[in-house]
């Protein structure tokens, strides 16, 4: 009983930070309809800044209060700059474009902090007294209560602002119907800006008060965005009090789960340690249950411009494109030096992951962030098949892909009634749960190390990276595995192109456009979605075992939550509705051909790559809100139309001349 109370009270700490960030998430969404993944990253910036100002990093040391003021101002500055430079130009783009842009901000901030302050984590200076309180015969640090008190007071103040000021009224009006709010003379840009100010100040404050729990490093506070998004989703991205209560609830729940894991009945894995990741699993399960009870569609904002995904044109000349692509691929695999060859092979894998997103997000409009996790499931199955059961190529990969489909169907079925951005949040929680509970577990995954994968061979032919044929430069990896990958990519590209041309693909696009009208046209919406999840998971699973063979091992790090987000970004930038977009997405994916080229050309590496990647991501989204492939397609269509018009004009003139 004492222990129970102790862990409930300890949970107040994490609960405060989650609640505060959740509040910032809801404020941002109400102000501008943006789900900002970078809010946790603003807290991170604040934590670093607070440490720097209090420890002579910039050559001066400020007292606590002036330091807090400067930190809050710099948090606000980060928020305002991202609002002006990133979100405002994207005001009329699809929610997915904004999500991708916010990921770009997150990565940019992460890289900047690492470059500026180095990779060693910093101790955030404590702002609270170090007292220990005696409650129910247990000792609890007073700072947990201080943290909770700060967040509760801020929440009440924010609540009062929205309830009783004209600005609050205007925000509520705009979040219900932007068009009517504009007609009433309210400027959505101004409202969005003020809300951003509030949210970034709040996020900054969380970076300061998190001192007892977290250090200033590049991930801890950034990752608080996941439980905070869950809390915001409980609140329907609308209700401030529910978001705060849910935030505290999640923090306390996780603390209790930690307590449970210290008890003797708690399931353990090899080595007698409790199963890892049960806290993430708890958040995910709670979210799915809450959403299925409530039937979760976010309140839609009556918006001026209807924001749709880019169009998905019918692909043409399949055989020709496949032949050209295949020929270029074979030549490159043979000719390129080993570094580029490896990058090309990783690009081929990236293309497969992007293709899986083309099916589920591009065709059906379901923003699933779970595809990388599904790839991981397949990768680990391949590894366990060979290690535990001695089953290798091709049965291992087949089993891996099937496992991907099974898990994908579970995710799909639990999210059938969830759509749009809510789905993105649920699948994000799912990714974290699969990563921490599944991949990081010694029982199902690989623990903190990797799990080995034997190289594939078929009928005595070595198909792996160490096959005897080594390309022109004679170095590892062998192009043979690349040929296998190339064949897979071509086959899957053709499959996805065929889907777009088939009645099934047209049904998917009908569902994407309008679920109600699709049902009225006799389309079984649930069946189409489930089919799409199955196909897309199969493709993601294929990418998973390709990774496994490419690296000769699988590890949790390769299928983590930031990588899952990054792939949505690559797929979106390439063009998430087109097969050619997936090819571009693969080329620009992490460690792929284009980044490798820049790395060689500019001689940059590590965190500089991360920084450049983040900035390029933001610029590309703003320049091509429809993705590179989409923009190219549109330009070509426009020039075709102009040419046709010119032809008609010449013809008419010629006729006029004759008569």
């Amino acid at each position: 009983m004492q222990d129970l109370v102790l862990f409930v009270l300890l949970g107040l700490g994490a609960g405060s930070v989650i609640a505060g960030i959740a509040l910032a998430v809801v404020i941002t969404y109400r102000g501008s309809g943006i789900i900002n993944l970078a809010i946790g990253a603003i807290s991170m910036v604040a934590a670093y800044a607070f440490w720097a100002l209090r420890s002579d990093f910039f050559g001066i040391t400020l007292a606590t209060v002036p330091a807090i003021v400067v930190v809050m101002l710099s948090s606000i500055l980060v928020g305002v700059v991202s609002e002006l430079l990133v979100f405002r130009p994207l005001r009329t783009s699809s929610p997915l474009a904004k999500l991708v842009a916010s990921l770009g901000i997150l990565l940019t901030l992460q890289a900047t902090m690492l470059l500026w302050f180095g990779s060693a984590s910093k101790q955030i200076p404590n702002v609270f007294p170090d007292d220990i309180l005696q409650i129910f015969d247990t000792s609890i640090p007073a700072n947990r209560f201080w943290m909770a008190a700060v967040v509760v007071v801020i929440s009440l103040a924010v609540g009062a602002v929205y309830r009783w000021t004209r600005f609050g009224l205007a925000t509520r009006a705009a979040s219900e119907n932007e068009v009517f709010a504009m007609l009433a003379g309210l400027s959505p840009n101004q409202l969005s800006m003020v809300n951003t100010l509030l949210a970034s100040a709040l996020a900054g404050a969380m970076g300061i008060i998190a001192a007892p729990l977290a250090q200033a490093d590049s991930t801890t506070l950034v990752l608080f965005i996941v439980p905070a998004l869950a809390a915001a989703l409980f609140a329907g991205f609308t209700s401030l009090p529910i978001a705060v209560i849910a935030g505290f609830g999640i923090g306390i729940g996780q603390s209790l789960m930690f307590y449970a894991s210290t008890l003797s009945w708690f399931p353990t894995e090899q080595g007698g340690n409790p199963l890892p990741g049960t806290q993430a699993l708890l958040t995910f399960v709670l979210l799915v249950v809450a959403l299925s009870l409530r039937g979760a569609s976010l309140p839609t904002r009556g918006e001026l411009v209807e924001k749709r995904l880019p169009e998905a044109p019918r692909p043409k000349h399949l055989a020709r494109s496949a032949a050209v692509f295949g020929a270029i691929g074979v030549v490159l695999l043979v000719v390129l030096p080993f570094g580029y060859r490896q990058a090309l092979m990783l690009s081929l894998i990236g293309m497969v992951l992007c293709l899986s997103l083309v099916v589920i997000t591009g065709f059906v409009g379901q923003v699933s962030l779970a595809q990388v996790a599904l790839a991981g499931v397949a990768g680990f199955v391949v590894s366990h098949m060979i290690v535990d059961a001695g089953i290798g190529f091709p049965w291992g990969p087949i089993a891996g892909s099937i496992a991907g489909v099974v898990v994908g169907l579970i995710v799909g079925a639990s999210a059938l009634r969830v759509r749009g951005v809510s789905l993105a949040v649920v699948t994000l929680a799912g990714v974290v749960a699969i990563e921490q509970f599944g991949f990081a577990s010694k029982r199902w995954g690989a623990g903190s190390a990797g799990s080995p994968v034997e190289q594939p061979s078929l009928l005595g032919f070595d198909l792996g990276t160490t096959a005897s044929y080594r390309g022109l430069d004679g170095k590892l990896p062998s192009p043979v595995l690349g040929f296998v990958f190339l064949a897979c990519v071509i086959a899957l590209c053709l499959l996805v192109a065929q889907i777009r041309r088939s009645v099934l693909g047209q049904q998917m696009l009908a569902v994407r456009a309008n679920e109600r009208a699709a049902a009225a046209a006799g389309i079984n919406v649930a069946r189409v979605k489930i089919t799409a999840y199955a196909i897309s998971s199969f493709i993601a699973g294929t990418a998973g075992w390709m990774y496994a063979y490419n690296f000769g091992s699988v590890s949790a790090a390769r299928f983590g939550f930031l990588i899952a987000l990054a792939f949505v970004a690559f797929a979106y930038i390439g063009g998430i509705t087109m097969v050619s977009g997936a090819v571009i997405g693969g080329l620009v994916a992490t460690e792929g051909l284009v980044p490798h080229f820049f790395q060689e050309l500019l001689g940059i590496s590590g965190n500089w790559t991360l920084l450049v990647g983040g900035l390029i991501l933001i610029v590309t989204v703003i320049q091509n809100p429809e993705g590179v492939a989409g923009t190219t397609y549109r330009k070509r269509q426009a020039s075709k139309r102009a040419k046709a018009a010119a032809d008609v004009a010449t013809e008419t003139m010629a006729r006029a001349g004759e008569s």
Partner: protein
Amino acid sequence: MTTVLSARGVSVSFGGVHAVVDVDLDVEPGQLVGLIGPNGAGKTTFVDAISGFVPHRGTVTLDGVDITGSSPHSRARRGLSRTWQAIELFDDLTVRENLTVAAQHPSTLATLKELFARPIPLSQGIDEALEAFALEELADATPTELTQGQRKLVGVARALAARPKCLCLDEPAAGLDAHESVAFGRHLREIVDRGTPTLLIDHDMGLVLGISDHVVVLEFGQVIADGTPGEVRSDPSVVAAYLGSAADELTAAD
């Protein structure tokens, strides 16, 4: 011959508001039935109910089969096609593809065959529906390239392409000019005469009374008149419900 569409005692309530109360309505083979009523009379709610989009009490049978508990998509596949007041075309698909998804419902096996081997032969209903509204030339355009009037016609053609047993049209002529409206009425009458019984909901009294075989009038969710266009036109309660501009329209339609 069995009644094509038969609604018995259909009622819909939203909270305490009774939007549709105990409505009986039949569409017989070869008939064009008009459903009219002032704004807010519950016409669209009635269509939402029989097509399965809002929960309702009462029974709906299609060609003698009870479809009361079925989901919207299975009602559509059994032959009850509807259109929407707001048209609701699939903007990502071409006109022909819009019609295709309504007309073709391939099995899993047929889909696999289509993906790996040969295309599914397109249903004749698609070409017939395009022809019925002279839309052949627009078959490869996307809905965003069309005029409002053309979009309306594509909406109706999409419902027709499924070769339904009964067609339900929710305000298909709203937004058409007088000339287009007359042409639309002529097309519609031809479709009914070629064998597709239709329930037509519209504000345009002239259109509905001019081409329907039978007219049902709703007011405040209840049926206040039910008969041939002639009977309805002279019904005192209808005249009362339409006092004012609409009453003039009624007489003008004579």
